[in-house]
């Protein structure tokens, strides 16, 4: 039977190694760039259509993640989707006339909220509502819009081209 001292030292080493590994996993390989500190504040935005936006999706400005979508509910009074955004406390000078749009990352990626800065001198405060919003682009609407537009263009072009040659003669 090994001496108790050897056992204790080896066990201590093992436990230390294990905890070091856990620490490594937690700090070195997860995204540390954005950790929601208690220093964050909330903004609200109402959309007609949020598309595929999910809670936890990033909120970015100029491509830099400044916050996360915290919660999405349906407001029965406004009859719109109410999205709660949690912004990191470091970014506390966002002009309060900035607009929020829902974009898609890449071609088929997840959706996120992009804030475009406005020109106001005042900044958003905790609980403020973002007034200017742009809904998510839904593929089906896009297609039907395209079809409708092209059909409208065709019917405009047909009667317009008919009288012109007649006038010339």
């Amino acid at each position, binding site marked *: 039977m090994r001496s108790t001292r050897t*056992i*204790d030292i*080896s*066990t201590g*080493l*093992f*436990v230390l*190694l*294990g*905890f070091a*590994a*856990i620490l*490594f*996993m*937690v700090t*070195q*390989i*997860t*995204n*540390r*760039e954005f950790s929601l500190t208690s220093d964050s504040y909330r903004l609200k935005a109402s959309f007609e259509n949020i598309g595929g936006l999910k809670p936890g999706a990033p909120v970015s400005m100029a491509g830099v993640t400044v916050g996360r979508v915290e919660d999405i509910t349906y407001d029965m009074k406004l009859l719109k989707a109410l999205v709660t955004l949690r912004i990191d406390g470091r970014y506390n000078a966002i002009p309060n006339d900035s607009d929020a749009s829902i974009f898609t990352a890449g071609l088929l990626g997840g959706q996120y909220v992009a804030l475009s800065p406005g020109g106001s001198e005042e900044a958003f405060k905790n609980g403020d509502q973002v007034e200017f919003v742009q809904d998510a682009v839904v593929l089906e609407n896009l297609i039907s819009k395209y079809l409708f537009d092209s059909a409208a263009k065709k019917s405009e072009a047909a009667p317009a081209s008919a009288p012109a040659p007649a006038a010339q003669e």
Partner: protein
Amino acid sequence: MTILRELLQSFLTFLERVGLLARFALQLLVITPAGLLRVRPIIEQVYNTGALSLVIIMTCGLFVGMVLGLQGYDLLTRFGSEEYLGTATAISLLRELGPVVTALLFAGRAGTALAAELGLMRATDQIAAMEIMAVDPMRRVVLPRFLGGVIAMPLLVSIFVVVGLFGAQLVGVEFFGVDSGSFWSQMRSSVELSDVREGLIKGVVFGIACSLIAVYEGYNALPTAEGVGRATTRTVVISAVVTLILDYILTALML
């Protein structure tokens, strides 16, 4: 007709075994709070199951990581996405390979050791002697071994994952020339804390399952030489099956 009868019999025996195991687990649960105070035996068992398994865990972790590096690189080049190698290996190790492979190795090395020790104590009347001396063998020999295994497993899983990552990096960066910076930074941006959490939770759950099965089989082994042998075999087989079933359940729950 007799086939049906036999099937029914085996099913009933299976239920009986599950019931006995559940009762055993409950007994352990009841004596755990008081048992945590006897630190010395627990430390010895953490050494027995954890520290002594380090070599096999780290070796296998290294090679699993290296294989992941190889396979991952080959697969990702087909889509032109080699820089995702770090992400791919990290997530596979953290969520699946880390906990599952470690559990299987644990069952093979530590689980059989626990079963054999307890089985041998049973076969040489040491457990009966304790009962005669009015000492509860569950408190004295079974509980420390169980707790030692439960503590050691998540630590082993973590070590396995980290060593595996370095193995993958070895293959990807050194052999295939994937950029070291993008290997780690892509990993950082895509791996979530929830992935780490998932791996650790699985580690704890598998640790409880495998340790429980090992001490149960050893404690209830038939007091003969064959009995001890059968106990160790059953430990590995049952631990493996239960681990994989639990893996599916936990993955479905956490996804």
